[in-house]
């Protein structure tokens, strides 16, 4: 498609949508620009929601700064409900129909709801994905609940647990697996964070699941675990993962399922038969794309940095004219988290890693950089409280350097390769 776009529609007015809109204007796009958002808020930032916001350090209003010349139409609080690919239009809940020359799908994910709807409906049961969630949960934490039960051994669960401890609220953190944070950091580093959490007074229960919740007058009163233990609580946060917002694409012909919306390396959305959907692009948490650092295996990366980078690539490619002028999305995933006084950073993806080496600092000091290897190549690196060397490892991962990478370095122990 070589015609210059005159109407661009972005569905999903959050981080990726915001970044794409700005990138389009920066690249000189002067046509009409519409952002459709299910939330009633202007694009805002989510990472502070589980960190500073709950602690009351910032308000939940983490609206992203908008360029005064953005000149975009925001249609907020009205989700898109259908995509008409042949008619090249997006239909919205309010019945409006928005024709486009180029479409960006940036509908992200939502919190996975607690599976039992009755229990999920009890007052005092929370999830944390958006601003309204953070406002509600923050308000509740300020009432000093007797105990907070957190379900889920991922970053959000740990960040909320950390915040609760800072506020001196007792916390029980239930993790279904034998080690927390293992999906992202591997068992060794995940275990380390678990230890730190325990020292900070978190009642961390591994291989532990909820059997049922008890309510009293519509409000959570206690939970019973599968091992029979009963915990009285009026506050539970389910941080059990996310679901991709792809249902509105049902019937459109795009290849989208629970794993995300499938894209090619240029951020173009693909049809069921693998062909490119003309003029349709995707970015952010919702997209599933071929990762050049893992032999083009499809990944969906739920990280802030990827949402921005992918939005920028998609924006560039939307204006590129034909495929020969498009650029690949070759962002190396990176991620950070703050909890229990530690700053954790991760570059690359640890999935499938078969080796780990502490390359700076040590596990004992809890200040370290660890590299992850997969079949002899360096695929990821994680830093705990010592992120300054990460750029060098980023370069090593990009180059698919042999594992372990970077030897004879500053502050480097004798490198011992172990299991992650």
């Amino acid at each position, binding site marked *: 498609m070589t015609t210059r776009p005159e109407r661009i529609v972005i569905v999903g007015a959050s981080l990726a949508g915001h970044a794409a809109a700005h990138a389009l204007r920066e690249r000189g796009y002067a046509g009409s620009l519409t952002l459709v958002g299910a939330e009633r808020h202007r694009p805002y930032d989510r990472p502070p929601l589980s960190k500073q916001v709950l602690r009351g350090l910032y308000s939940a209003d983490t609206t992203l700064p908008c360029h005064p010349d953005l000149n975009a139409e925001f249609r907020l609080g009205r989700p898109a409900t259908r995509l008409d690919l042949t008619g090249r239009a997006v239909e919205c809940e309010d019945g409006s129909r928005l024709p486009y020359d180029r479409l960006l799908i940036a509908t992200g994910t939502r919190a996975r709801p607690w599976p039992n709807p009755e229990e999920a409906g009890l007052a005092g049961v929370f999830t944390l994905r958006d601003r309204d969630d953070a406002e509600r949960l923050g308000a509740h934490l300020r009432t000093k609940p007797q105990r907070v039960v957190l379900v889920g051994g991922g970053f959000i669960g740990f960040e909320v647990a950390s915040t609760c401890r800072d506020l001196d609220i007792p916390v029980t953190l239930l993790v279904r697996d034998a080690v927390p944070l293992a999906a992202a950091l591997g068992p060794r580093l995940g275990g380390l964070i678990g230890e730190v959490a325990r020292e900070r007074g978190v009642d961390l229960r591994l291989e532990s699941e909820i059997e049922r919740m008890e309510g009293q007058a519509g409000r959570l009163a206690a939970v019973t675990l599968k091992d029979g233990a009963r915990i009285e609580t009026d506050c539970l946060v389910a941080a059990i993962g996310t679901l991709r917002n792809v249902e509105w694409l049902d019937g459109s012909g795009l290849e989208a399922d629970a794993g995300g919306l499938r894209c090619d390396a240029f951020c173009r959305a693909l049809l069921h038969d693998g062909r490119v959907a003309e003029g349709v692009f995707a970015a952010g948490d919702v997209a599933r794309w071929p990762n050049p650092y893992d032999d083009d295996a499809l990944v969906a990366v739920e990280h802030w940095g990827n949402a921005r980078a992918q939005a920028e690539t998609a924006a560039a490619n939307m204006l590129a004219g034909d495929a020969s002028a498009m650029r690949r999305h070759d962002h190396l995933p990176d991620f950070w988290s703050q909890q229990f006084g530690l700053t954790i950073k991760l570059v690359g993806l640890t999935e499938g890693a078969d080796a780990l080496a502490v390359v700076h600092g040590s596990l004992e000091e809890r200040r370290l950089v660890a590299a992850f290897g997969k079949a002899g190549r360096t695929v990821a690196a994680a830093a705990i409280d010592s992120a300054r060397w990460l750029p060098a490892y980023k370069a090593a991962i990009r180059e698919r350097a042999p594992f372990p990478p970077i030897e*004879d370095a*500053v*502050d480097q122990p004798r490198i011992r390769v172990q299991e992650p």
Partner: protein
Amino acid sequence: MSGSTLFEQILDPANRANPYPLYAELRKAPVARQADGTYVVSTHAELARLISDPRISSDDLPDPQKFRWTGHPVTDLLVRPVRAEIRKRHRPFIFRDPPDHDRLRGQVMRCFTPERVRGMRAKTQAITDDLIGKMQGKSRIDLVDDFSYPLPVTVICELLGVPPEDEAQFHGWATQLATALEPNQRGDEENQAKNEVCFNEIADYLQGLIKEKRKDRQEDILSDLANEKEGMNDFDLIATAVLLLVAGHETTVNLITNGMLTLLRFPEHLERLRAEPETAPRLIEELLRYEPPVHYRTRLALTDIPVAGITIPKDAPVIFLLAAANRDPIRFPDPDRFDPDRPDNRHLGFGGGLHYCVGAPLARIEAEVALVSLVRRLKGVSLTEDPPPYRPGASLRGPRHLRLALEGVAGE
């Protein structure tokens, strides 16, 4: 100048006023080996990469742990005192690597709180007003001696908690100790001996001051550091205080002086700053790119490091030529143009990686208050000589004097 390498030419004071053509020459090879085995990195991409490469050490003294006795009586004798010396001296954290670097720097960062630094703005303004007030009635000033030098000295002394009556002593000490950052002066034996004496004097003085701060804790950085529970030992405390003093002196002086020189060379920007003082922050970022106070830093390769098609060999000294990378045309379009409106100005004026300047926020405040006040209050100001005479240092580069003619001084 045939026979001398490009980097030797940079060190030559004759080229101090305008080293940029030499930098351009150097950038033709991103990493250039000099005849003495030093490697100079001058391009932005390579520098940005190496500056956070853990195979590069900031500890460019021989590591006592790694030192192996040669069995040769003369060599061992020569090296033994060096080992003792290293242990004794507890080098400041810019010359150290993690984990020590991180521990010491972390403790300093905890004292350099944003509130405390922001709180220095009013004080900086008061000192500035005072210094400019003293120019009243003069038709000629030396910006360095009359302004750029005393301002940061007073600010850093105040922050650290050095009594004002002792400030004068620090001028001499700081100037002398800063020579340790210049390779051509550092190696010089006579200079080393002077540094030794100077360091002992300043250490004695600080030791006394620390004792006082422990007895009578004040609202200042030295008090905080001296009273921290798991704090530094006294050697590290002294080394850190000396570092802060030297760094606080020798860099901001250059930033302010280079700033005024640049504004006088480009009067349209001086006029604009006068009319729109709110543009100061961007102007200062561009200054940090265009005329940075610190031109290079030295490092050591711990192992062979392949970069830009060559290999920096183990144990080679490496020069990070920050000022050259700041004018790399691949990174900055039209790099020799002074353009405060640059949209993407990720300069290396404050360095990068884990040694990124601790004092950056303070330096920005000082430069902003100083330049805005100078252009607002000095009337009919002009350079009496261009280029001005420079100080000998090639690393901490800046004019020794900046003699200006004035028509008058406006009120506050």
